[in-house]
């Protein structure tokens, strides 16, 4: 079954990352890379890490004219920072995989329409 994992950053997490020394940062990236290596056979699509929410642009098409605004579609303290697609047996396998994720503190799991 296919699922999309949406990785979500929080303000606290962003601050933690900012406070890291170059060596700590490198170790953190290494843990993330290792996670991707460990789960390579389950990952079917992957974007790189997204740039910060300040770089987002949202377009709304539900009015008479398209409206373009600055910022993410939901203004909030939690922002999507990356998206991957996985192919696993069931939700429990997705949950197991997600629980070993070494970086940002929130992940949404959403099944893809078959």
């Amino acid at each position, binding site marked *: *079954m296919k*699922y999309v994992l949406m990785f979500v950053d929080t303000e606290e997490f962003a601050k933690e990352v900012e406070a890291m020394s170059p060596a700590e940062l490198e170790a953190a990236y290494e843990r993330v890379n290792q996670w991707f290596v460990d789960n390579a056979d389950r990952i079917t699509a992957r974007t790189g890490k997204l740039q910060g929410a300040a770089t987002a642009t949202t377009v709304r098409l539900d009015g008479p004219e398209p409206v373009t605004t600055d910022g993410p579609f939901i203004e909030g303290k939690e922002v999507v920072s990356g998206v991957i697609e996985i192919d696993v*047996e*069931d*939700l*429990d396998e*997705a*949950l*197991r995989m997600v629980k070993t994720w070494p970086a940002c503190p929130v992940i949404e*799991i959403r*099944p893809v329409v078959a």
Partner: protein
Amino acid sequence: MTDHLDPVRPFAADEPAADELARVVREHAGRLAASLMSLLGDFSAAEDLVQDAVESALRRWPEEGIPERPDAWLFTVARRRGLDVLRRQENYRTKLAQLQWPVRPAPDDRLRLIFICCHPALARQAQIALTLRVVCGLTTAQIAAAFVVPESTVAQRITRAKRKIADAGIPYRIPRDDELAERLSEVLTVIYLLFNEGYLSSTAERAHSRDLVDDAEWLTALLAGLLPNEPEVTGLLVLIRLHRARVAARFTSDGHIVLLQDQTRARWDHAAIADATALLTRTARRHHSPGPYQLQAAIAACHCEAATWAETDWEQILVLYNMLLLLQPNAVTRLHRTVAVRYVEGVHAALTELEGLQETLGKYALFYATRAELLRASGRNAEAHQADEQALALTANPAQHDLLRDRLSS
């Protein structure tokens, strides 16, 4: 199949008949659900068929009598209904048509059913409703009545949960060893909430709904049979049994609550208490470092074993609360612990403990009721009165209402 034409136990009176019906349905509904589930591989379809069979049984058995083979009767109704409604799903029809009763499900099948109903990806209320419906065979109407919510609300929760199970790929299986502890704790929470709801319903409709406590005990006993090496399951079972053993003394004949200190202990079921505490002791001997349910059961056992309120072993209870607090460092545990603090360290120590909980428990009736008792014990009657009034404003339970009103008027 003519079993249902052969009534064996015509009903004498309404009340025992309802109990007997509930008992028989509960004994067979989960097994039937498990059988149909392994046959069809579709939780939602299996569940619908069981529910339909249960509703037929509840309509017909009061008049026709409970058949000699309730399992075969339910199966026949479910199968007939299945052939009818699954007309468009040829593969289900074929499977059902080939099926003969008795289907012998593996003993683990109801365990899988419990784990899918209590999956952490489902909302708490949905876990509770699904477990009651699928494992215990309650109808949507019975669940709605027990929780005093509209039937449509329960129906919607169940529909949504079943859709999520299918769409999100929630598996029908026993969790792996490395997941079992976490998933079992989810199941125990669901049963514990069920027990609490039944034990002292927080709703105004009925102070004491016996059915849910019965279902909670039955579920825990089932779970204990299926997972015999899980000490926390036994802990919850003992906890429920120790509470049930005292139930006759908890209410006056007109429904008023009798507090533990005022209960007539001769009315407790001392044989049941002895059995339950022996079970707890056996479990404690086999497993070290007791979990929260075993500790709560041990606290209940201390109360049950005291011949009088004055002989209560508060020091032991305080030790158990301290252990519980390490595992569950939350405000509600600390609130309960203050009662032990009062008898070991004195009323002032208890009041000081309580002060620190105001912020977290400021909307919790028991916080004010406890505070009122402690204030009264230290002679601060006006403040006690005020705390009782705050408790009264925060509880919807009629028996608690009566108790607090009595205190306020004395």
